[in-house]
């Protein structure tokens, strides 16, 4: 009996020769233990060395192998061929990002947005090392822990319809990360982050579709972070109207 095989349609774009991206079909051996990344690696090693794609850890930690698989943003290291076999698997670069080459996208805009929300602990004054640890209770940690799980895979940016409609939108992962630091008891930087988060391009461009939270491989739930930021920003807004509010 012949070995089972699976067809993989991969979007190719080689800027030096291709005017537009084109699909190329590869036939790979079917192995029920393989994930889509294994199939891509098989192509690169045995069929076509020119195929470009990003990956690093192969265990859903590094966040670099996000692609569209049959139209849905997924980590290719986390998506089994057996969920598609004997059907075809169509692999494309993440939606809402420019293509650099084949499955590799340009992530510069995302990186800038991430940096814009100051995703690090900002303290009121410098704490000398001699001040010792900054203690935090398990309950304090729990209040933001889920938002620390983000691996910057950008799947949420590919899933979000607002990213396509409003490219200036700061987007789910960056806003969730801003929320993560705002909730951190060691942090005093909320006011600075609100400059971005509470602007029109911040949480207010979100229409609560919720696709970000559906596709997130780490259960970060960025949609919840954004809604909580909307509530807090609304409270700020009304407080500022009060004579004693600032």
């Amino acid at each position, binding site marked *: 009996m012949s070995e089972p095989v699976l067809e993989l349609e991969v979007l190719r774009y080689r800027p030096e020769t291709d005017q537009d991206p084109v699909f190329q079909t590869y036939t790979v051996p079917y192995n029920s233990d393989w994930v889509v990344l294994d199939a891509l690696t098989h192509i690169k090693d045995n069929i076509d060395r020119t195929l470009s794609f990003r990956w690093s850890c192969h265990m859903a930690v590094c966040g670099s192998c996000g692609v569209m698989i049959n139209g849905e943003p997924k980590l290719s290291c986390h998506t089994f061929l057996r969920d598609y076999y004997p059907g075809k698997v169509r692999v494309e670069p993440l939606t809402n990002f420019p293509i650099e080459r084949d499955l590799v996208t340009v992530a510069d805009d995302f990186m800038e947005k991430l940096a814009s929300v100051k995703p690090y602990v900002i303290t009121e004054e410098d704490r000398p090392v001699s001040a010792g640890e900054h203690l935090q209770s398990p309950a304090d940690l729990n209040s933001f822990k889920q938002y620390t799980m983000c691996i910057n895979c950008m799947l949420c940016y590919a899933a979000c319809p*607002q990213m396509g*409609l409003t490219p200036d939108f700061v987007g789910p992962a960056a806003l969730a990360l801003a929320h993560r630091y705002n909730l951190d008891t060691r942090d005093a930087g909320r006011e600075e982050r609100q*400059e971005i988060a*509470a602007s029109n391009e911040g949480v*207010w461009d979100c229409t609560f*579709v919720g696709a970000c939270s559906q596709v997130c491989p780490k259960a970060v739930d960025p949609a919840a972070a954004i809604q909580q930021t909307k*509530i807090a920003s*609304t409270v*700020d807004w009304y407080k500022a109207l009060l004579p004693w509010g600032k």
Partner: protein
Amino acid sequence: MAKSNKPIVWSLFAGGGMIAAFVLPAMIFITGLAVPMGLLLENALAYDRMLALVGNPIGKLVLFGVIFLSLWHAAHRLRMTLHDLGIRSGRVAMLACYGVAGLASIAAAVVLLSI
């Protein structure tokens, strides 16, 4: 980037969401099911009782709040959905959605105040 003034629109939307989720189902249950099925007093929705409810200033205020916030919620949700569907001609969609909600709210206020 300047801080947004969208909290005004959104707080009404969020308030309306609470009402649409919690108060409206209860009202539909009372008026549409409980009374017709005889689960409540037969005269629970009798004319004079309703008139007393609507005649009371607090009753007017609560009813207006429920109507206005629910309509605002629906208008905002509809506009956001139109936006998601790619219908982005801001002004027309905005006028249509908030306009209907505004006119219906004014109509409700006029009726309530005339009782």
